């Protein structure tokens, strides 16, 4: 009997009209309409359909291992031993030592000891204490200033930490959070979801997406005069989608601003090891900058990091942490309570976070391979970043700031009148119109700048530079050809 489950005609209890209005309102372009269309095209290709391209290339999201970037060998060896502790039994030693280096075996043993019974058990809601300690030690070594494991929360990716912090900051709909324009839309989407007020501050494209502290101050004052209770400043450093890195002086000014204007500083630093001009713009953490600021024990700071980026790219594992500095004790207790309702972050992600911050050291058996893999990935990212930047800058009407950091380029496109008119006809934003056509012509999926917000009257798109190096030239040629055709079509 084929049962009829077609229930289109029956009225629903839960509809788009009566559901949570914040969810309805919020947008997240990185996996929005264009990405959904890209998947449809991918499926079509898999079914054997003939399209103008052979593969769909997902440049919409920083997901390196989906584009065949290899994971770091040592890290995967350790976690695979933690998954299957039977392998550490003495009677298996002879065989296991053929398959695993001794330092991976020892590290897995230590981690299992630290985790306690099993990686399958719920851990402490902030994350396993010993793993948090390893993060604290890393921070202390990175910055030259101590860190307290009790102020550290391991999280499911940085995203989940960001959402919890934004949630706790939102007292009511007048609570205002400063966000950069352009920004990674986790922020705008989460603020919509919470019913909080985003307070945008603009990065300046012509000066390498720099931020102007005085301009931010003006923004704060203006928003407050209109009744917005501005309470926090989000900085993404290195930037996403924009890739700029702040210099140390700028950071001191930002901290002073936060002190004077009574703002909690939220420092999203997930790209801290994707630094492509390390001499001119080395990465400085806001924690370090804070510790060297006169108000070092007053300014409230939360810093976020993740295992999804850098060279390790363990996105699917959902690991990361945030560190709190100078937060009120009562607020810390409430944060704990929030974390406890979800019980704990997944333990495999916690372990990978700890591994990321305590990699093999010189002298360790795995050090050579680890170093080779990391350097190889780093150099490759740097090369691809430069290559793609050159390609974009070469396109007619397109300018592109260099990526000092992160995994993205955010070129500005200047579209001919005819194209703007056509987009308007289709009721689309011009950059979405351009990106749609790029996808259908080349299989390359990028994200329109409107997904990140941008200065009025300007159009951009964000592309990763993650496609594998051996396909990179084809990838660049595809984009060149599409752009040329597009300009020819709409310049007529």
């Amino acid at each position, binding site marked *: 009997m084929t049962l009829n489950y077609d229930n289109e005609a029956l009225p629903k209890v839960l509809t788009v009209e009566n559901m949570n209005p914040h969810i309805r309102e919020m947008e997240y372009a990185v996996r929005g309409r264009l990405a959904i269309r890209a998947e449809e095209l991918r499926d079509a290709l898999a079914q054997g359909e003939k399209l103008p391209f052979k593969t769909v290339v997902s440049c919409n999201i920083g997901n390196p291992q989906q584009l065949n970037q290899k994971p770091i060998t040592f890290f995967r060896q350790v976690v695979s031993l933690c998954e299957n502790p039977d392998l550490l039994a003495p009677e298996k030693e002879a065989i296991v030592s053929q398959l695993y280096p001794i330092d991976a075996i020892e590290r897995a043993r230590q981690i299992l000891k630290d985790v306690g019974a099993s990686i399958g058990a719920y851990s402490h809601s902030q994350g396993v204490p010993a793993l948090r300690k390893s993060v604290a030690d890393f921070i202390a070594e990175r910055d030259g200033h101590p860190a307290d494991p009790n102020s550290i929360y391991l999280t499911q990716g940085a995203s989940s930490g960001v959402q919890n912090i934004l949630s706790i900051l939102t007292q009511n709909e007048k609570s205002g959070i400063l966000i950069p324009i352009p920004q990674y839309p986790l922020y705008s989407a989460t603020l919509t979801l919470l019913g909080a007020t985003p307070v945008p501050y603009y990065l300046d494209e012509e000066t390498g997406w720099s931020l102007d502290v005085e301009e931010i101050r003006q923004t704060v004052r203006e928003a407050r005069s209109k009744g917005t209770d501005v309470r926090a400043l989000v900085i993404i450093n290195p930037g996403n989608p924009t890739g700029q890195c702040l210099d140390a002086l700028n950071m001191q000014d930002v901290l002073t601003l936060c002190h004077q204007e009574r703002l909690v500083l939220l420092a999203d630093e997930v790209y801290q090891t994707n630094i492509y001009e390390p001499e001119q713009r080395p990465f400085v953490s806001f924690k370090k900058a804070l510790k060297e600021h006169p108000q070092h024990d007053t300014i409230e700071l939360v810093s976020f990091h993740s295992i999804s980026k850098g060279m390790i790219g363990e996105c*699917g594992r959902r690991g990361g942490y945030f560190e709190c500095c100078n937060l009120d004790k009562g607020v810390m207790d409430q944060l704990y309570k929030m974390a406890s309702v*979800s019980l704990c972050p997944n333990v495999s992600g916690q372990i990978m976070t700890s591994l990321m911050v305590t990699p093999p050291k010189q002298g360790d058996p795995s050090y050579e391979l680890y170093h080779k893999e990391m350097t190889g990935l780093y150099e490759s990212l740097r090369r691809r970043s430069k290559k793609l930047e050159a390609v974009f800058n070469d396109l007619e009407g397109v300018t592109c700031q260099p990526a000092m950091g992160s995994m993205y380029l955010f070129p500005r496109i200047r579209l001919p009148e005819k194209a703007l008119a056509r987009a308007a006809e289709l009721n689309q934003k011009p950059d979405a119109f351009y990106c749609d056509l790029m996808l259908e012509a080349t299989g390359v999926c990028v994200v329109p700048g409107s997904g990140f917000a941008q200065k009025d009257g300007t159009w951009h798109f964000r592309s990763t530079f993650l496609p594998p190096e051996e396909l990179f030239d084809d990838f660049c040629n595809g984009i060149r050809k599409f752009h040329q055709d597009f300009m020819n079509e709409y310049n007529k």
Partner: protein
Amino acid sequence: MLRNLYRTTSLAARQSNIHYRTLRLASTGSKGKVLTTDRINPHIRNAEYAVRGALPIRAEALSKELQTNKSLGFDRVVFCNIGNPQQLQQKPITFFRQVASLCDNPELLKAENREDLLKLYPQDAIDRAELLLKHIGSVGAYSHSQGLPHIRENIAKFLERRDGFPANPEHIYLTQGASSGVQNVLQMLTENEKSGIMIPIPQYPLYSATLSLINATPVPYYLKEEQDWGLSVAELKKSVDESRAKGVDVRALAIINPGNPTGQCLTEGNMREIVDFCKAENLVLLADEVYQTNIYKPEQRPFHSFKKVLRSMGEEYNDVELFSFHSTSKGMIGECGRRGGYLECVNIDEGVLQQLYKVASISLCPNVHGQIMTDLMTNPPVEGDASYELYNKEVNGIYESLRRRATKLASCFNGLENVTCNDAEGAMYLFPRVRIPNKAIEAAKEAGVAADAFYALKMLEATGVCVIPGSGFGQEPNTWHFRSTFLPEEHLFDQFCSNIEKFHKEFMNEYRD
């Protein structure tokens, strides 16, 4: 109405206060924190989650103290506050861990390693890992935001085998534990503060805490302790009518089956009544079924899924909207720390499904290892497979042991003076009722805690056993309970029971009326 008016007025007053204070502070420099507890999200402040609240926090502190102080009266803290089997030495399922470890380290699957690999792994674990990796690519990549299509297809097949009715992989979401799925759905359902969700009393406080956080209205319905925690439709009707009369927009009914903390399993007849009730009252049904394999009276009370019951009631019930939740944390596999699970959407509006996708996409994807474990849980080794014998032995061993411990502990509790305890038909908990003497109730009042919290705290300090006071789950007024798991290791169980007996006797002697 009056209360809302007060709230709005005081909110306006607070806002202008904040405005003034902010301007003033901005100009004079700073004193005091920017973010204080009176300025945070008030819903967070109001939310409570006892399972990791005051009692376990105290238990952690004692656990630490035990490292240096050996004169506490017990030599270890026994965490009975939370269903966390592997923390109490329950072993993971071998096959599952073998597959997971191969997925993490695909180098092992290379041809040159095969000879060694076969000395460590059975062929079927190798085959399964290869199959999974073929579909996944790398476990380090973000997957589809609903979870990997291959795994969703496997879950759909599992559901079909379990229920005898088809499932649509497009309507399945893999989630980080069932908790995260529950939270997303509750949030979706909450249009404004008048949105009401029916929750059982007693309930697992994920529900009450989440409703607090999203500022929705909990609509309680009481389970009947004297009828084995039975659920009567009359009680449901009373509850929904009362709330709607007060202007609450009641839109969903949450049922935990098997129950938590109460462990009861619904009969099929009862379930059909509930489905009818949802249809008549225009309620979305939320079926939390994470304990569906923890069934201790399988002849009298086998598990039925709400999906199966709904579908078996025929086409006229195609308008009943259902979300079902499952998890890798419970059952016999106990992979809590992995944060795996799924939710199935049945008869949900297409537009709402798209919105659900959008919510999932912001967090990018559930962790891939949790997805793999969900796949393994729903598609374990079958007869004929190399690993089947060991798998079956492990799962049965854990099941029988859980059943024995459930019975033993219920018997222990029922033997205590002034304590009655319903059997656990399912789940991992017992929820005994303690008739606390007035003298103790007074002492509790003086100490500023609920009477059952007072009792539980005394138990912890005397025995090292951490349970959760009934007030953390909700209960009939003037009754007192506590929830304890029956997960402590079997070889230590007799000692565990006798420690509780000793404590209880002393407590009753001290506070006897």
